[in-house]
């Protein structure tokens, strides 16, 4: 198999005295879909935020698309261009229109001509099925629409990897489906995805690999069929019992 596109090797991180990530080792191949789950506070967000250096790890190695994350601005910039991120709270720029949200990075970071950036942005808005909202401001859209714009924005630099941190947790139930549909579409096109979510139906349908975290450790890594039906670890079993129970 080819070299992994994301590689975490013995990663440790502390918040002050609090050991939040403990010996995290994870390899993600090109095109692989990884779904991360685990109890609240287990370090899921912290782990994926380390992958684009929103958090700094203190020991171990993180390599993304051949670039090792270290205290080197060039490396960090290179990685951030190759990795798109979608947040739980959308984080769209409220003072810019939907279209401007999508063209900001291509124009300012990649130096694309504004006209080309707009064409790319419109194509992405078609893909998330809201081209008619291009001229509106984020505050004028529903939560589901905002999250789809956020996905389009994360795609505008043509990333090799997409990170999702609970992208549907802040949504009203009737809007969860439209966002998961867009994500499934993305998965079907072969995007490499690392996704923190508790949408187990989505995980079962889309994931190649399930990762279960607890207390800062990766407790179990398994394909979804085995993960859901025959979890090896006692903690995984308890967690799944709780989550699927209701």
């Amino acid at each position, binding site marked *: 198999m080819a070299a992994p596109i994301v590689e975490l090797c013995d990663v440790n991180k502390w918040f002050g005295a609090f050991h939040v990530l403990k010996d995290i080792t994870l390899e993600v191949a090109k095109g692989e879909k990884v779904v991360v789950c685990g109890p609240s506070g287990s370090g899921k967000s912290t782990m994926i935020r380390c992958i684009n250096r929103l958090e700094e790890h203190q020991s171990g190695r993180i390599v993304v698309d051949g670039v090792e994350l270290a205290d080197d601005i060039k490396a960090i910039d290179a990685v*951030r261009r190759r990795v798109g991120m979608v947040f739980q709270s959308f984080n769209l720029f409220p003072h810019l229109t939907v279209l401007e949200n999508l063209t900001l990075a291509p124009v300012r970071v990649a130096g694309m001509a504004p006209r080309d950036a707009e064409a790319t942005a419109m194509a992405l808005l078609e893909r998330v099925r809201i081209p008619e909202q291009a001229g509106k401001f984020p505050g004028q859209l529903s939560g589901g629409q905002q999250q789809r714009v956020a996905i389009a924005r994360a795609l505008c630099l043509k990333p090799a990897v997409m990170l999702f941190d609970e992208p549907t947790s802040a949504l009203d139930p009737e809007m969860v489906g439209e966002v998961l549909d867009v994500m499934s579409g993305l998965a079907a096109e072969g995007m490499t995805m690392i996704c923190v979510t508790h949408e187990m139906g989505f995980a079962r349908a889309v994931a190649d690999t399930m990762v279960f975290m607890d207390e800062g450790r990766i407790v179990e890594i398994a394909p979804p069929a085995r993960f859901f039906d025959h979890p090896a670890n006692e903690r995984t079993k308890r967690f799944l019992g709780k989550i699927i129970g209701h």
Partner: protein
Amino acid sequence: MTGGRASIWGSTRFRGLVYQVLVVAVVVALGGWLVHNTLVNLEVRGIATGFGFLEREAGFGISENLISYTPADSYARALTVGLLNTLVVSAIGIVLATLLGTVLGVARLSGNWLVGRLASVYVEAVRNVPLLLQLFVWYGVLTALPGARQALHPLPGLYLSNRGLVIPSLDWSQGWLPVLEIPSLVGFNFVGGLTLSPEFAALLAGLTIYTAAFIAEIVRAGILAVPKGQTEAALSLGLSPGQILRLVVLPQALRVIVPPLTSQYLNICKNSPLAIAIGYPDLVAVSNTAINQTGQAVEGVTVVMVVFLALSLALSGLMNWYNKRVALVSR
């Protein structure tokens, strides 16, 4: 007591009306008494009333004038010269204080410990010393500088001496585009450039440095009010810290910054009359001289009050308009 009367007096509307009429009557009576008293006193002392004095010859010189002025000109023109001096120092003060304040506000939040500490020390030191004292310090510093021959020359085109501050100026007479004119020292004199008097420079420095400290705090609060997720989203898109500040954070911080910024701008205008302490001929200083000569204090003060009121209202109006423009659109 009839039932009808009782019900009218029981109505809150009617009571409210009665109280309002009473308040107006008291205010009018007080005002009338004040005016009457003043008029009687002025008559007793043989002081003329009315604004006729504005057209008479002022008879005093003004050290700095943006429009031509001689002592033979009228009081109206003298006051206009003072007003222009107030406007110039306020306008330039507003621009410089905004720039300096923004830089300091950003610096206070800097990840660099030394930069952050320095900005904090600046803000704390400057905010807690009365502006009048600071003006005396700057004036003292500027007038204690060496003469023109030994002028300090810290940057090309910049001279500091006891004659004031000489800076490069724009020369518009050479055609369509202005030409930058760099001053130089020839013998005892500066040739070219623009000379700012020590009084003007001290007042401008004082107003700028003092108000910048308050603006820094406003800018800092505005930046802190922008959710952290905005910066994280921008970082994840690969924007640099400078771009994030310019394109994402500051535009959103403006919503929080503009209203208190307006009152700082008004403060610059309202603090500018401290000019009188160091001899810069602003509107208040000129009108003071006019009042001393004519004795027409009521009219002189009225002119100053009306001008400041108009200035404040115009500035507030402008800032309110701007605030509406930067407001976020939402459902």
